[in-house]
């Protein structure tokens, strides 16, 4: 095709830019890598240290408190099943990745969402960015992450963090903005301080929306963590990737079952949190 050849120039520019970044900003990325890997290792230690039946029992207990007896029994048994098919270490490291990335994303997204909800000017800047982030296929986020951090769990965490950020931020700002007007006027009329207005009036009203955002973030994070198996994040994603590449049918079916089990359990738990919050608000 006789189109101007921008691509090779572009590739060279990118390569030299990355080379420059690697030379001059290495300590930043190394530090980021070390911090992310450290946090991940800490979370992983927490869930991998107890034997599998303890974790399964904990999840069953949580499920019993949050959803109901039947769900508790099913989720406990399902997790035992993950151990039984010999994928417990992978299941645990997937769980650790998802939890770490979601928590990091929430720590950033909820305050930003609150700011966006209170300051329309900030919201106008953030909204198109979020649109863009949510339009792109998640697979792409692995590229900058891998270019800057190299193979390993830190890359998976960074990409998952970006993907999980958007829904939580968006739904938090939506929730803050949706506070009914007459309650704000009521607060003004009774002379509450700014802090009281926020914590006693706006936040309770925003809670259902924020929890819905948490649920969505968790599910997005899960989808991404599984994809991130290809950059050596470890966990179920990597075992599926390996199994698909080698057409190892038995192993890929096992890993897929484990992923579905873990997704279902996390989704139901997060949804029940949404529902209980909605109930409280009403």
């Amino acid at each position, binding site marked *: *095709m006789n*189109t*101007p*050849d*921008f*691509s090779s120039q*572009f*590739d*060279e*520019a*990118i*390569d030299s830019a*990355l080379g420059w970044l690697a030379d001059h900003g290495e300590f930043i990325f190394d530090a980021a890598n070390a911090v992310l890997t450290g946090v991940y290792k800490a979370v992983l230690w927490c869930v991998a240290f107890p034997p*599998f*039946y303890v974790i399964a029992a904990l999840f069953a207990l949580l499920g019993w408190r949050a959803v109901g007896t039947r769900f508790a029994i099913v989720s406990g048994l399902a997790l035992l099943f993950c*151990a*039984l*098919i*010999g994928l*417990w270490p992978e299941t645990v490291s997937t769980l650790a990745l998802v939890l770490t990335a979601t928590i990091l994303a929430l720590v950033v997204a909820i305050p930003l969402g609150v700011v966006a909800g209170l300051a329309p000017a900030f919201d106008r800047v953030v909204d198109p960015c979020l649109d*863009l982030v949510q*339009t*792109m*296929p*998640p*697979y*792409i986020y*692995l*590229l*900058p992450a*891998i*270019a800057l951090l190299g193979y390993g769990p830190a890359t998976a965490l960074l990409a998952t963090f970006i993907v999980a950020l958007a829904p939580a931020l968006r739904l938090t700002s939506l929730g803050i903005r949706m506070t009914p007007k007459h309650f704000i006027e009521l607060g003004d009329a009774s002379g509450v301080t700014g802090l009281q207005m926020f914590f006693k009036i706006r936040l309770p009203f925003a809670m259902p929306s924020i929890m819905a955002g948490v649920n969505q973030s968790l*599910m997005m994070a*899960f*989808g991404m963590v*599984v*994809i991130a*198996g*290809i*950059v050596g994040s470890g966990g179920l*994603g990597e075992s*599926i*990737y390996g199994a*698909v590449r080698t*057409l190892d*049918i*038995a*192993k*890929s*079916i*096992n890993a*897929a*079952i484990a*992923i*579905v089990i873990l*997704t*279902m359990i996390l*989704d139901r738990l997060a949804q029940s949190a949404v529902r209980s919050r909605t109930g409280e608000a009403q």
Partner: protein
Amino acid sequence: MIADFRFSPGEFLAPAVDWLNANLHGLFVLISQVVEAVLGVVERALLAPHPYVLIGIVFVAAFIFATKRVAVFAALMLAFCLFSGLWVASMQTIALVSVAVLISVAIAFPLGVLAARVKRVDDAFLPILNIMQTVPPWVYLIPAVILFSLGRVPAIIATIVYGIPPMLRLTTLAFKQLPKDLLELGQASGASPRDILFKIELPTAAPTLLVGLNQCILMSLAMVVLAGLVGAGGLGAEVTRGLSRMEMGLGLRAGLAIVAIALLLDRLSRGALQRHSPSKMV
């Protein structure tokens, strides 16, 4: 030790899959050939005209069916794909997405209408759709790869299955939300059921249907890109190549081209939606 006891459902399922592959080989080959043929036609149609001609056609079509802004935007995005040196891969991706979306819609639309009319069907679909939308996209690729091996065919089949839930859900919603008075008006004026469907129900439901189509397109694109991992070709394969060979320039170019295509498809379908919204008021 309990941990030493292993059970692998995959080991039991693998022979079943082998049996399927051995005995229904003809069927799978037939499906593969049909899919390959259709894809080939679409791809050749996209690649046959000179890129500039195709950009012109898209510009004019977008100008007629959507707005001027959308048309300019679409032309810019396609030009970006051309100048990033990934025209062929971009067209392959668009061919994959459009064929997958067409088939998804052809399956989801009638089922959605049925679910909107028959409550029992709706109740039966709901849990299935919930599960389908929770499971990470990776998992869809596994059965497709097991049955159809690597290549474009498993990619498109996984994409079709992945694209069905949003379309089905929003079709059901669209037909359930129809204002009763319009339907009664139709019945009162003695319109035949066919006239009611095409002259009253479809135009009124169009905005929601187009939202469903938009979601279906974006999810299909995400899946097609991911399917680059199983040898689907197109931009996904370029991203995968960039990731695995650490050729960041190539990976980033492909990533940006994917963004361009995502924005192109998103704006085109949304442009059609905006065009359609005012007609609702009539």
